[in-house]
């Protein structure tokens, strides 16, 4: 299945609110707008069997100057193999204009056995743009070895590259390597280009908040399950000096202690 969903948000100068200019769903990618305050909110609902081998999914999100959008996933997606082992791909393009804000927060992607999935995320930021985007990858369902996933992230601000990362999942040797994924079931990462970056890296045994060279911050968590990964990510985010949770951000109930008794470093 080939699908290209599009979403464009713009600032309405009269009301100071963000309006959704374009909201084009295409099965299996469905976009549901939510009524809210100054920030536009949209839910991304994918069908349960997405992406499936053979799928080529594209999502393009544009946020105009000064506008503010939060696009969040609703349920975890399963990367599944096609009936004949075809690969699947999902490409997300984010464009955030001057002084605009975008939060793109999909739910976890579970890489099931024999999946052959390629995920790319490209974010182009203008000066003064704010971006928060997260990716949670689960290496197989319970007791399942993951199939293959190649995920690539590209974040640029103007002509300056902030972050370029490619990761391969599904090679048992690398998944288990202490120098690659350390045998952990879940990798969670989050990019924050959101005000002041930390002056130095902060972290614990399997998580870190590290300032990128040209601006922006990467949060990285390796965890045994998605719940701990999410909780740890929330803790990590609190170490980011520029982060100001929006009014829609639920208060995370976790503390450093509840997440990991091993960590002595908040």
């Amino acid at each position, binding site marked *: 299945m080939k699908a290209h969903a599009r979403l464009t948000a713009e600032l309405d100068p009269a009301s100071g609110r963000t309006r959704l200019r374009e909201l084009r769903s295409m099965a299996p990618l469905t976009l549901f707008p939510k009524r809210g305050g100054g920030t536009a909110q949209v839910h991304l609902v994918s069908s349960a069997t997405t992406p499936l081998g053979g799928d080529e999914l594209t999502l393009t999100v544009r946020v105009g100057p000064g506008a503010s959008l939060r696009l969040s996933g609703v349920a975890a997606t399963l990367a599944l193999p096609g009936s004949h082992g075809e690969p699947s791909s999902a490409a997300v393009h984010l464009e955030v204009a001057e002084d605009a804000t975008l939060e793109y927060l999909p739910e976890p992607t579970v890489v099931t056995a024999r999946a052959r999935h390629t995920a790319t995320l490209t974010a182009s930021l203008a000066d003064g743009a704010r971006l928060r985007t997260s990716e949670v990858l689960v290496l197989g369902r319970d007791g399942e070895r993951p199939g293959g996933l190649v995920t690539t992230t590209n974040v640029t601000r103007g002509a300056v590259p902030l972050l370029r990362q490619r990761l391969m999942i599904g090679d048992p040797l690398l998944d288990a390597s202490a120098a690659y994924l350390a045998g952990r079931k879940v990798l969670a990462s989050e990019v924050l280009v959101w005000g002041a970056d930390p002056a130095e890296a902060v972290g614990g*045994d*399997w998580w870190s908040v590290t300032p990128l060279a040209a601006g922006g911050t990467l949060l990285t968590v390796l965890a045994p399950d998605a719940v701990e990964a999410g909780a740890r990510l929330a803790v990590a985010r609190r170490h980011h000096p520029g982060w100001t949770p929006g009014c829609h951000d639920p208060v995370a109930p976790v503390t450093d202690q509840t997440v990991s008794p091993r960590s002595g470093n908040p």
Partner: protein
Amino acid sequence: MDVLSLLLADSRFPGGGHVHSGGLEEAVARGLVTSERDLPPFLSGRLRGAGELAAVFAAAAAHAAARGVRSGYWLLLDAELDARTPSLAQREASRAQGRGTARAGRVAWPSPVLAGLLAATPRPHHPVILGALAGIAGTPPRDAARAAAYLAVSGPASAAVRLLGLDPLSVNAIVAALAGDLEAVAARAAASAGAEPADLPAPGAPALDLLAEAHVRQHKKKEVRLFAS
């Protein structure tokens, strides 16, 4: 493989490499690597993340240096490698070794291309200065990539011998067994050597980044650490 590649890949090359364990010391401190048996997966992971990235940029730098690059290329390459190295600790380790390699390179192989590179980036990333030195001497990108990839595993292997007292003959055999993977990494890196810097591959390895960050944290806490990274 020419003499220059041998010199650059030699553990006795005086570029400061011997004080970097490539995350191995932190892995040993946490009990993730305790014996010869744990070393192959560690080195494989390191090769496919940090090693492949180093090879890609060494090959690109060799390709550029051999052709006489347009001004600004070194800054561009530097920024692109920065973007592919999210860990601050890893960036610092790369630049520390780059500075050491540049110091040795200025004495052994002075050239206008090298001077141009160091004028643009006084603390170059290690793979970039390594590749540039190779390219200036006419060493093919693939050889530069092989040297960079080899250093990415030979350093931690040597650190394992020093930290754990592993049998050096076994460790040498473990590195030797990576020959096929090393050649594959070098061949892939050479294939992308002529690409625009923005389009170069960006292999990453989150666990290695986290080990590198943790290592620096231990330094700051005044825990015993024998290696700079």
